[in-house]
């Protein structure tokens, strides 16, 4: 991929090393995110999507180890950043909203105290200036300024999520990583939060790496997306293309795992338990800007049995 990408990940391999065996959580993964683009990374639990997010922010801890590949952000090698550079990079360049972000707030500090920390730690501002900016931030995510004095337990789940998002965009980062930002919320709040993120994105123009297993949500929000399976990307392309013309059986199975809210009621078959892809080859182009991993014959046989039901039902 060309170097007009803001984030460019090439052949990244991350391993969790144990005494007896080593697990490769991310296996030779490459993708890029352009400026202002929303990139969706889909996959089930354990496929390595959160490991990628943690690698980008250099949050990996022993026994995880980057075994190969590179991560370039805005022309800089992220994997080579050291102490102070890394501190500057985190939150200012790339910020992250963690999974179950609602619980990432400190219960014994007020919202205002926690938000103020971001400014005083990263910028040369006084306490008063910081407080003023915290107020503005809260208003940006439609929360009353008076809430700065509240403790996290006094806010609803949706409000806490908004606070966490406001904190993530506080320093106007160029990229935001959202790791399952709405998993713990119910549908109505989820939709409002996603709309909030879209508005902020349009306003501030940051790129987004959006991680989720909810395909409907991902297709609705993302421009580009990639589907991961056991550490490998199995398909990558524009979200609408993957939604309508998914090339890989696994992508189709994942898309079929969500019943639709309109139309005929048809019998669906998810990807059954115990069905495993044995080998995933490198991505090959299947259309303009659209890549998919070729499927080995043995995998084709076992997967075909699973997905015929779903395809048959839709006719």
């Amino acid at each position, binding site marked *: 991929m060309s170097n007009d990408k803001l984030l460019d990940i090439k052949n990244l391999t991350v391993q969790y090393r144990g005494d007896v065996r080593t697990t490769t959580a991310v296996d030779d993964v490459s993708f890029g995110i352009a400026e202002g683009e929303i990139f969706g990374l889909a996959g*089930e*639990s354990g496929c390595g999507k959160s490991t990628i997010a943690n690698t980008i922010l250099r949050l990996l801890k022993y026994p995880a180890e980057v075994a190969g590949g590179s991560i370039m952000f805005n022309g800089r090698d992220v994997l080579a950043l050291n102490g102070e550079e890394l501190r500057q990079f985190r939150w200012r360049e790339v910020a992250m909203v963690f999974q179950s972000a609602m619980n990432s707030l400190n219960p014994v500090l007020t919202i205002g105290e926690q938000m103020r920390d971001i400014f005083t730690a990263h910028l040369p501002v006084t306490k008063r200036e910081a407080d003023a900016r915290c107020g503005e931030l809260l208003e940006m995510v439609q929360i009353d300024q008076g809430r700065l004095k509240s403790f996290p337990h006094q806010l609803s*789940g949706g409000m806490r999520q908004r606070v966490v998002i406001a904190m993530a965009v506080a320093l106007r980062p160029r990229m935001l990583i959202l790791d399952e930002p709405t998993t713990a*919320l*119910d*549908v*109505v*709040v*989820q*939709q*409002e939060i*996603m*709309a909030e993120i879209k508005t902020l994105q349009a306003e501030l123009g940051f790129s987004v790496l959006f991680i989720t*297993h*909810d*395909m*409907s*949500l991902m*297709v*609705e929000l993302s421009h580009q997306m990639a589907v991961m399976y056991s550490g490998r990307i199995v398909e990558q392309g524009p*979200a*609408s293309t993957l*939604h309508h013309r998914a090339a890989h059986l696994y992508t189709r*199975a*994942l898309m*079929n*795992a*969500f*019943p*639709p*809210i*309109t139309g005929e*009621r*048809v*019998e*669906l*078959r*998810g*990807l*059954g*338990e115990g069905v495993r892809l044995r080998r995933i080859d490198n991505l090959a182009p299947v259309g303009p800007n659209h890549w998919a991993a070729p499927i080995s014959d043995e995998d084709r046989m076992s997967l075909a049995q699973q997905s015929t039901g779903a395809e048959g039902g839709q006719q």
Partner: protein
Amino acid sequence: MTATTTTTATPILETRALVKEFQQGGFLSKRMLRALGGVDVSIQPGEILALVGESGSGKSTLARCIARLEKPTSGQILLDGVDVLTTEKGHASREYRGRLQMVFQDPFGSLNPVHRISHFLERAIRNQERLTGAALEERLESLMARVDLDANMLASYPHELSGGQRQRVAIARALAVDPKVILADEPTSMLDVSVRIGVLNLMRALRDDKGIAMIYITHDLASARYLADRIAVLFAGELVEEGESLEILANPAHPYTELLVSAVPDPDRAGSYDPERRAQLRQRVLAADSCPFDGDPGNPCSRTEPVRHRVGDAGLRHLVRCHLYRPATAAGANALVPTVEDVAS
């Protein structure tokens, strides 16, 4: 795909004006919170009813009351036409448990990690009948086969199983006593996406083969539509609308149902979120000025009584609570939702 039951025989399970109030604050506190405000639901044998609503709408409280894990403040629970709250005061009888079973949300928390899978199933069977030796073995194996698990897994511990497999064990445990009704409280929300459909399909197969009635509690409308014959929508501890699944989601008659339907992510109607419309709907949920069913013969609109209007054909069993009804007025200080004046301020 499924033949929906349209009979009006005796319901297998029915609640009448079920109320549950929780005490708030300290031991001597008189402050009460009305989590269920007079809920009437009924379910026919072999029917799947989905209870949907946002967090805090009272779905789980209703399920826990029916499962007798909570004691309702007032109201009736009828199983096969018998009011169990008067015949079995205190706690549920073994017989009641034999006819009604519950499957919980978290398959990681609902199976004791120190026991083998066979233990959970054996205990459930022994509670109801004496089975030993080969007969017990046979029953265990048939239960495992019924939930599509390998009989070898009987000797496994819960941590050796995936989330989906564990939830199947929880379902097998519920089936062990041959129940008439299964209450499933968000059985798929903690599972991986690709195995969710499998669990829903299993639940439907159990209904089709054994005629077990199910109450499926969820906030995922798409899965409710997929599995359930009928959907009942709860808001602030009260039923606002119920009807055949496809009908109610295609033609929601209450603003709250409309709100829920519009919030479901669907790539085919991307960009459908409209904050102004959302605010209007919210306003109408709490304080509607008019009711589209005004002039319903026999069911005049009311602000204080939860009048239910019929929507469309009687066969659709589609009922909606009068839009004008203000739950806050009826529940007084114990209300779960703020009064209109509170909202305005």
